[in-house]
């Protein structure tokens, strides 16, 4: 039964990818339908495609560089030095991952407004009026995306620090190496695989990134992979070119597949230095001293200022004004809630309603399906279980917008006769859930592996049937992991824009799509008001997550 349940999402994932390949070879011209490599030839010949590829590469490399630049030193400070109040950067970083990237991107557009952007005014007054930073470039967008992903680099590298035997570093200092030398010659090589893995992981995300390029690049005609796909399906004039989009998608899937393979191998290499013993070992922490401490807080503060505080404050500020201007006495006098009053409330509320439904159903569905898959993979010993695990991982490796593309095509042209779900919230629900399967199964695979199989076998031998074993033994034991993953996915669902961009119609609009729609229309102040509303609604949810995940972490069973 569990095997059957696990095959449903696996079949859907494989099905959508096969449809993608099929679309890419399908050509619908005046002379009817033909199959061939027509779309690939077009891609190959088009200089715009080459530009997009170059943009994507530049964008994602800057993303990785920025994320590592902030994330790695922060991880080192938290894991290996005597920095006080370590929970603070930890909490802020985790929460930082939840801040929707398109919101900070909007903030950054205001900050780097060519004429009145805060940064550009400051730069102009220092370096002369001809100096202007332009955010609407691959480098600028990469910087914003990198700031948004620095928490991920931080969390991954911190985990590497924690699992790397600190005795190896202590041996260096005992044998007379200075701090700097031991950092460069022992610590860095030891955690290099971890940093590399984090880098590749972020590169994969950067290549597929949609939100930041969609907010900053789309209106300035600077395209990366995901926005190019969006453009092909929603062209300003002419018919959608699904075949071109799909062919480009196939190409990017191949690249993403290679990156995932590389990531997997680096990760395996990295385990060579892992601490084997499970004992609670507290490494000797490096003393920062007064100057070091100042520098450390300065560094962390700088990140939080750039990554979260400044763009979000700018967003809130601009939502109070009819048009953007620098904070001043006259600007304060003009501040009002008029933008909020002008918001298309019925539309926004319907988006909110759909988003709420998705937030409740998607995590539940993902966990149900992921539990079935993880159980088959970890426990059943069924043949082909590793193939199943690989398929469940695909939504991570393959850019999410590709699933949206495939699903849009399938629900528009293949399914309507017997499953008319295009334009309904069910389509969003299915695809949102499908792309989160990789996250759900990663969480449940490791949670299940930590529960000794004899705990289940004891119930089995003593006569408790399968469903009751799951309900009475497995679920209570998995509860901390389930609660944590559920909340996390609910919050990610709240901010989901990538998939929605291709699947949302006026009848199944979501909150992020309402905000982004206002932005694309050029009503920036209203978009800022919508974004601020979204942000304010999100805050209590983030707080609930923070509160519950702390409690859940305390409840992890020691088995």
């Amino acid at each position, binding site marked *: 039964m569990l095997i059957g349940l696990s095959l449903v999402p696996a079949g859907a994932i494989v099905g959508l990818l096969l449809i993608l390949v099929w679309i890419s070879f399908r050509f619908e011209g005046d002379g009817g339908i033909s199959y061939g490599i027509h779309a690939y030839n077009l891609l190959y010949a088009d200089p715009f495609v080459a530009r997009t590829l170059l943009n994507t590469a530049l964008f994602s490399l800057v993303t990785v560089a920025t994320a590592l630049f902030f994330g790695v030193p922060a991880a080192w400070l938290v894991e290996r030095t005597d920095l006080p109040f370590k929970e603070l950067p930890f909490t802020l970083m985790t929460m930082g991952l939840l801040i929707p990237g398109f919101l900070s991107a909007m903030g950054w557009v205001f900050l780097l407004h060519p004429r009145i952007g805060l940064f550009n005014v400051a730069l102009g007054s220092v370096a002369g009026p001809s100096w202007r930073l332009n955010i609407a470039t691959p480098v600028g967008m990469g910087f914003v995306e990198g700031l948004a992903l620095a928490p991920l680099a931080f969390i991954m590298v911190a985990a590497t620090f924690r699992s790397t035997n600190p005795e190896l570093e202590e041996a260096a200092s005992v044998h007379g190496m200075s701090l700097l030398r031991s950092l460069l010659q022992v610590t860095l090589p030891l955690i290099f695989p971890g940093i590399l893995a984090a880098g590749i992981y972020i590169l994969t995300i950067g290549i597929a990134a949609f939100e930041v390029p969609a907010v900053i690049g789309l209106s300035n005609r600077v395209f990366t992979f995901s926005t190019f796909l969006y453009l092909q399906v929603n062209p300003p004039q002419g018919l959608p070119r699904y075949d071109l989009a799909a062919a480009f998608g196939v190409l990017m899937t191949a690249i993403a597949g290679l990156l995932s393979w590389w990531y997997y191998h680096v990760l395996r290499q990295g385990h060579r230095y892992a601490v084997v013993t499970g004992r609670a070992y507290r490494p000797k922490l490096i003393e920062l001293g007064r100057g070091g401490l100042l520098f450390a807080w300065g560094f962390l503060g700088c990140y939080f200022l750039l990554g979260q505080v400044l763009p979000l404050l700018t967003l809130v500020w601009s939502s109070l004004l009819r048009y953007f201007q620098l904070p001043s006495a006259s600007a304060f006098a003009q501040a009002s809630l008029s933008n909020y009053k002008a918001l298309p409330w019925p539309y926004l509320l319907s988006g909110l309603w759909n988003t709420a439904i998705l937030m409740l159903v998607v995590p539940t569905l993902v966990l149900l399906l992921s539990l079935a898959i993880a159980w088959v993979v970890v426990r059943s010993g069924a043949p082909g279980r590793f193939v199943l695990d690989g398929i469940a991982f695909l939504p991570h490796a393959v850019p999410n917008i590709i699933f949206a593309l495939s699903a849009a095509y399938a629900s528009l042209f293949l399914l309507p006769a017997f499953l008319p779900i295009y334009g309904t919230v069910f389509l969003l629900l299915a695809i949102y859930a499908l792309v989160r399967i990789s996250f759900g199964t990663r969480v449940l695979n490791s949670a299940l592996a930590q529960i000794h199989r*004899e705990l289940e076998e*004891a119930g089995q*031998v003593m006569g408790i049937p399968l469903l009751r074993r799951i309900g009475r033994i497995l679920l209570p034991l998995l509860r901390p992991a389930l609660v944590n993953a559920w909340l996390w996915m609910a919050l990610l669902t709240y901010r989901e824009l990538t998939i929605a961009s291709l699947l949302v119609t006026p009848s199944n609009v979501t909150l992020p799509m309402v905000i982004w729609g206002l932005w694309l229309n050029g009503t920036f102040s209203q978009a800022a008001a919508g974004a601020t509303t979204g942000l304010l609604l999100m805050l209590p949810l983030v707080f609930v997550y923070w509160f519950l995940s702390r409690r859940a972490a305390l409840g992890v069973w020691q088995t």
Partner: protein
Amino acid sequence: MIRLEGVSKSFRTKGGSVAALRNIDLLVEPGEFFVFLGPSGSGKTTLLRCVAGLEKPDSGDIELGARTVFSGKGRLFVPPEERALGMVFQSYAIWPHLTVFGNVALPLTQGRRRLSRTAVRERVLKALSLVGMEEFADRPAPLLSGGQQQRVALARALAVSPEALLMDEPLSNLDARLREEVRSKIKELVQGLKITVLYVTHDQVEAMVLADRIAVMAQGTILQVGSPRELYRSPLDPRVAEFFGSMNWLRGDVVGQGRVWTEVGVLEVDPKCQVSGPVVLGIRPEDIKIGRCSEDAENRFEGELVKGTFIGDQRIFELKIKQRSLWAKTMADAGEPEKKAVVRLPKSKIVVFPGADSVEGPEFMDVKPAVKIIEDALGSQRKP
């Protein structure tokens, strides 16, 4: 009664298929305490898990009581939850989200045969009192010590009134002193309940203390089944002999009825041994007599004591007969023997195994280093 016939099981690994069980036949009588003994990888746990239904054999038949629960030919497989067994796991498998009471009660409330609330309460408390845990009934499981968890696991397995009780190395996670205590407790309890027990261990002392009968296993086969005394005194296989303490091994050739030529000279052995040609003789260190024996006794040799090691209640000697080293063990207070002493190898204590040329002496037949002998001797006192 538990009956196994021709049970085989192999596991697929990266290097191909590995046979974990080869054609196992076994009959365990009702009420018997039966131990599977063997080193790791001998297949003893796999065999137990096949009886439990946690592994599915490739072929053979398994009967529990009057019921066939597995038949390779008949394509019958009764899943574990329908076999009516109790089991104590190596990790105890105490459910950490429940109390002591909840752990014992869960199989009774969620299992195949669900009982009424009052019946459950009565059963649980009775089972807990059997293991002396009734006053801990409301304690959350994570707050239990290892020994307490072990007792709860036992109570849980007994509370379902199982057809048979299966125990998979239940003592291996306890420290040495506790192990001895729990061991005698288990023996006492099980004798009182007259329940059939299958018990897996790699510790020969544990096996000998607990078992009515022992099956010694190696490489997926049963080498010998017998009472502890039979296995110790009349091993049918050198590996069985070796498993129950140290042995001195001598190669030899049969030169007449009950007479074997060896490196140390011609030895008389039990004439009932129907062997000829090359043989391997074994004698335990404690069976070698040093000094003081009557002139007409058999197998007397001039020996030289090379080294004596005092290990508390016993002494271990390395001695030489015609350049061949042998190990002997005496009580510590037996007095200081002469440097040159008469050494006797009583023929009733010598075990004879056919040793065809094809049998390349297994490594254990070489002379053992002193350390190993001393460890064996100490181990038999300390381990329990």
